[in-house]
């Protein structure tokens, strides 16, 4: 093998190493970006859960302010979830999110008949359970996708 061939192989190895390093860096960047969205979704769900619990249980709460906060949190969650689904359709959290939407905004939500108090504690427990299921599924998806 002549000098030229050795040089060509050397260049090829260098090129492959550069491509490999770039791919790794891209994957790290994507992972970081998605992790940020996952964390933001978890934080917003926590806020949503706390606001909804206060809304249904605290007799001294401001209902209109909390209704606004609940809608705002849902809007943020919808945006993040739609964004995550664009990246990967296999996340598997839409059903949990739909259930959470039903639990929080059906029944006496935004109704004059709503009386906040202890009698709504089972409903509030269901919010927490559904939120936890959603976060568990989300974390499982994330681990599967990025921590192979």
């Amino acid at each position, binding site marked *: 093998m002549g000098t030229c061939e050795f040089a060509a192989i050397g260049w090829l190895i260098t090129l492959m190493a550069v491509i490999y390093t770039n791919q790794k860096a891209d994957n790290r960047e994507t992972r970081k970006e998605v992790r940020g969205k996952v964390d933001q979704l978890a934080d917003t769900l926590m806020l949503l859960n706390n606001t909804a619990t206060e809304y249904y249980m605290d007799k001294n709460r401001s209902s209109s302010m909390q*209704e*606004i906060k*609940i*809608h*705002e949190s*849902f*809007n943020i969650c*919808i945006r993040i979830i*739609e964004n995550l689904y664009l990246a990967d359709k296999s996340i598997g959290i839409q059903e949990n*999110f*739909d259930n959470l*939407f*039903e639990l929080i*905004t*059906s*029944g*006496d*939500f*935004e*109704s*004059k*008949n709503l009386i906040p108090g202890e009698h709504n504690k089972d409903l509030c427990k269901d919010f927490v359970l559904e939120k936890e299921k959603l976060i568990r599924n989300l974390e499982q998806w994330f681990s599967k996708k990025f921590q192979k």
Partner: protein
Amino acid sequence: MTNKILNIAEEYSDTPAGRYLSDGNYSGQRFRDEFLFPALQNNCEVEVILDGTLGCGSSFLEEAFGGLIREKNMDLAEIESKLHITSSRALYKNKIWQYLKDAQLEKKKKK
């Protein structure tokens, strides 16, 4: 017969809320009775735009849309042929069609 666009935020309220008339001025029942049902009766196609609202609860959406079948005795097939939902929040669009299908199923069970 014409086509009608119903922009909820512009023509009704940017904060539609509640199920029944007793829940406030911008309930699902009032939207259905005074806006949506007449629009569907008098037009070939109706496009409902949900963008621009703060958000819509399940109680509002279910009463406004599911109530077309339950209270106004409309048929799902007729609604499907006339109604178009526009929303950047896909959740609302999916929910509306789910409420309509559920209401149709309930109606069939009662017959």
